[in-house]
């Protein structure tokens, strides 16, 4: 029987980009379920503030510096986590970036910047932890994609491409390492209120326009995504791999007429 109060007891979990937004919500929720957490983030000061908050509430959390595009930093970080706890059970590849531009307005440098963080970062993360998980004969990886990885994004070509790559990279890795007891799934949030989307959502007119395209009529919360991550990190989903969880209030399940909800 699953204990829904302590779904992650005794699990060592590394979350990238845990200093704000969705990553922070995941860290806070995971901590309440008994996980031993490590946050790897390029914004080290902000990550330390999250560590302080979680530890202050009785959780186990360590903030460490990580640039997800640097292979050596991944190696060092995973070594440090394993040295401290003896293992690594779950990796949440959450760190991501966005440059909102259509294709023709985007320079190669900008394109590479998005792909580097969103795709290479996930590739390097999986490469760093999977050997340890193979040795453990068990492991769990959660990759943060997006609804933009399922459909074309009107305003962000590189972001959409990068998240599509995360989706299929997830499936490829799931198929390749499933027999080692490693589960790998992706999460696809729609419009979630977070620092990354605040510029759009704080504009009342844009928010109202956007809500018209969401069947449930509201923007999602970082906690909605955190609940899905908890579900995937726990044994509640133990037969799921290569699978996707879309958390978008229904935004991607229908065809929009003129960009707005048809009724």
């Amino acid at each position: 029987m699953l204990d829904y109060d302590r779904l992650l007891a005794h699990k060592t979990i590394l979350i990238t980009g845990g200093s704000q937004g969705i990553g922070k919500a995941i860290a806070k929720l995971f901590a309440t379920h008994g996980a031993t957490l490590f946050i790897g983030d390029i914004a080290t000061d902000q990550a330390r503030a999250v560590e302080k908050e979680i530890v202050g509430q009785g959780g186990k959390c360590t903030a460490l510096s990580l640039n997800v595009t640097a292979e050596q930093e991944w190696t060092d970080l995973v070594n440090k986590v394993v040295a401290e706890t003896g293992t690594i059970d779950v990796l949440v590849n959450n760190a991501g970036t966005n440059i909102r531009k259509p294709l023709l307005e985007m320079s190669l440098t900008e394109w590479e910047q998005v792909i580097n963080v969103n795709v290479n970062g996930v590739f390097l993360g999986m490469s760093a932890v999977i050997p340890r998980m193979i040795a453990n004969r068990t492991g769990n990886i959660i990759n943060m994609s997006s609804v933009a990885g399922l459909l074309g994004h009107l305003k962000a070509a590189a972001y959409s491409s990068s998240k599509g790559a995360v989706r299929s990279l997830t499936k490829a890795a799931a198929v390749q390492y499933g027999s080692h007891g490693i589960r790998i799934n992706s999460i696809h949030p729609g419009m979630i209120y977070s620092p990354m989307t605040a510029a759009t959502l704080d504009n009342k007119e844009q928010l109202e326009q956007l809500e018209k395209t969401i069947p449930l009529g509201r923007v999602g919360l970082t906690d909605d995504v955190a609940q899905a991550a908890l579900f995937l990190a726990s044994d509640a989903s133990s037969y799921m791999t290569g699978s996707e969880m879309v958390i978008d209030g229904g935004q991607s399940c229908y065809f929009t007429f003129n960009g707005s909800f048809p009724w």
Partner: protein
Amino acid sequence: MRKKLEEKVVFITHGSSFWGKALSDLFQEHGAKLVLGVPPGTKCAQTDNRIEVPIQYTEENSWDNALKTASNKFGQIDVLINNFNHPTAKQTLNSLDTTFYSTVHNYLNSVFLGAKSTIPHLKAAGGGSIVNLVSMYANIGSPASSALASSDGGIRTLSKSIAVQYAKYNIRSNCILMGLFATDRLQNTDTTVSTSQIPMARLGNAEELIHVVLHLSSKDSWYITGTEIIVDGGFSNA
């Protein structure tokens, strides 16, 4: 332990089947009041938190009557589980091809009628969740049964249509796409299923499905609608 369905009334079709029993046991642990669909003519058991109602799933009247009974007993309906009751043995899948119309009629129509009869109750309760259990052949071609693929693919897009049409009443609708599970039927009728094609290299067990159903039924998934969760050990991606 935190109960995920405290005071919620859940209607589960095919309540006396393998999956019906597994689901009702878990849901009861999580505080749900249960309405279990059983074949017409069955002697119906009743307790304070659990009733059985006879139902013919392809008859609209029968759905309406069953829901009326449920609503009279518990005052509301919050969740509808269109339970999986498809044949799982390979032999049976082949024979389905000769009965294309009846398969689509049985599976797809029953989900349509179930949603149609249940939505007014969910609306009256201020919202709710519909969870449709189908096979992974809702997404991919089936080597064994085009009938099953058709009915389940139809249920998948029907579920999305329900989601987009009734979200304004806070009603969510999602599918779970199932791979191969070690159920009573699979064990009894077909022991030759090859697990070598499954990335996780094994069949799923009942526990591994019912917690996914629980997640989609509960408020923990309140921003999830019009989508599907594949639970197949990686099978349909291999």
